[in-house]
């Protein structure tokens, strides 16, 4: 092993007696001794460290001065402009679009990415159009059918849970304590406080007051209500009647106690047939009183 540090150790006085004796006996030692002696006498031109320091301080003062030369008036204007820009930007980015469907109405509209939404009667949807493609989130109160364009995830947020999809067609109903989601095409993920479930085409999920229901799914490529043939998956009569009120824009009073839930279709463009179906199923009779319809036991 080559010793490539011996001379450095000698220079530092680190050689042991044996090593030192051997080195001093070598022919080159005399030269090394002189190198060591004379190199210690070398000097280099001195620098003026005081003026160097002064120049450094000078530079620091210049930097501080730069900040101070902006006049107070100018900086006030600048501050106001920045604030105004900031506020404008804030409103622009948080600006929400609201879509409504009154009772007896429906509202069909497009989202910024050409996703289609059909709002059923008595429903409201809100979304931010700014930066939509990167943040497709829509808040729903009520019922809507969605045809989502391909892209990033698409979220429908309701009070009862969130539905996340990627390029699908699905129906969401969030009314009162009842939360229904039906997948017609693609994949749909439903997240509530207690559950997370993935729906495939033809599958649906229903929650009543947070509890999962075993409810039969709808057939078809889109929800029945689009063609005014509304499907109810085991819903209490009160819910059916509430929907009829929204669709027909009438008051219906139920003066009877009924237990069974309704499974099936009710037309929302033919009040007589609708009432007949209800009456037959629940053994009720209907009476008109002014603008109201009163249902009583037969």
């Amino acid at each position, binding site marked *: 092993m080559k010793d490539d540090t011996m*001379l*450095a150790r000698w220079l530092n006085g680190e050689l042991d007696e044996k090593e030192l004796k051997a080195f001093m006996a070598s022919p*080159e030692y005399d030269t090394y001794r002189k190198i060591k002696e004379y190199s210690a006498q070398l*000097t*280099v031109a001195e*620098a003026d460290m005081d003026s*160097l320091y002064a120049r450094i301080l000078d530079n620091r003062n210049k930097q501080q001065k730069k900040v101070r030369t902006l006049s107070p008036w100018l900086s006030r204007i600048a501050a106001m402009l920045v604030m105004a820009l900031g506020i404008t930007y804030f409103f622009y980015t948080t600006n929400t679009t609201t879509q409504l469907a009154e009772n007896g109405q429906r509202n069909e509209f497009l989202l910024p990415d050409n996703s289609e939404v059909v709002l059923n009667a008595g429903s409201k949807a809100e979304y931010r159009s700014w930066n939509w493609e990167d943040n497709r989130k829509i808040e729903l109160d009520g019922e809507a059918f969605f045809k989502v364009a391909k892209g990033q995830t698409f979220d429908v947020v309701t009070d009862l849970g969130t539905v996340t999809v990627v390029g699908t067609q699905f129906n969401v109903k969030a009314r009162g304590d009842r939360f229904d989601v039906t997948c017609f095409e693609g994949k749909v993920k439903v997240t509530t406080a207690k559950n997370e479930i993935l729906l495939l085409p033809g599958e649906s999920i229903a929650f009543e007051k947070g509890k999962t229901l075993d409810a039969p799914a709808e057939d078809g490529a889109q929800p029945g209500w689009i063609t005014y043939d509304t499907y109810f998956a085991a819903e209490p009569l009160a819910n059916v009647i509430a929907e009829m009120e929204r669709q027909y824009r009438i008051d219906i009073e139920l003066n009877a106690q009924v237990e069974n839930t309704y499974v099936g279709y009710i037309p929302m463009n033919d009040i007589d047939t609708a009432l007949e179906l209800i009456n037959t199923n629940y053994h009720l009779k209907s009476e008109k009183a002014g603008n109201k319809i009163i249902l009583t036991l037969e």
Partner: protein
Amino acid sequence: MKKNMLTGICEEIIFSNFFKSHAKTLRNYLLYKYGNEEQAEDVTQEAFIKLWENCANVPLEKAKSFLYTVANNTTLNQIAHQKVVLEYSKKSPGSHLDSQSPEYLMEEEQFKVKLQKAIADLSEAQRTAFLLHRIDGKKYHEIAEILGISVKAVEKRLHGALQELRKKIDNFR
């Protein structure tokens, strides 16, 4: 918790003391490296200015390392590296020479000149390490810190420098 008063090297007294302890060595090191006095001073100035600008982010114990990192990475003017001019101190302990013969004295003078030339021909790595030890009296671990290498690497460079110097001087005959 943020303190509003200046701490560490941002405080002028501390900065000033730090300068007094390290500026000269830095400037000398750069002089050995570039061989140009103006370049050495400019880079030294620049390194301290950068240290001041970043004083809030550099704790005192890291300041030296920061200083040398900036200095080694600063390429101000593209002045070609020149040979550093070294001189022999007039105050050298040469009393023993008075009793020697004129021939001996002349030989020693020639040796000293050969040594100067040989040092100038060393590689930058060997030269800077050697001169930091011989002129500035820096210990091996200090040189290691300045050059950003290990102590073993410093020893290798010094060993190599001494070997080169001897070879050159003995060949000058």
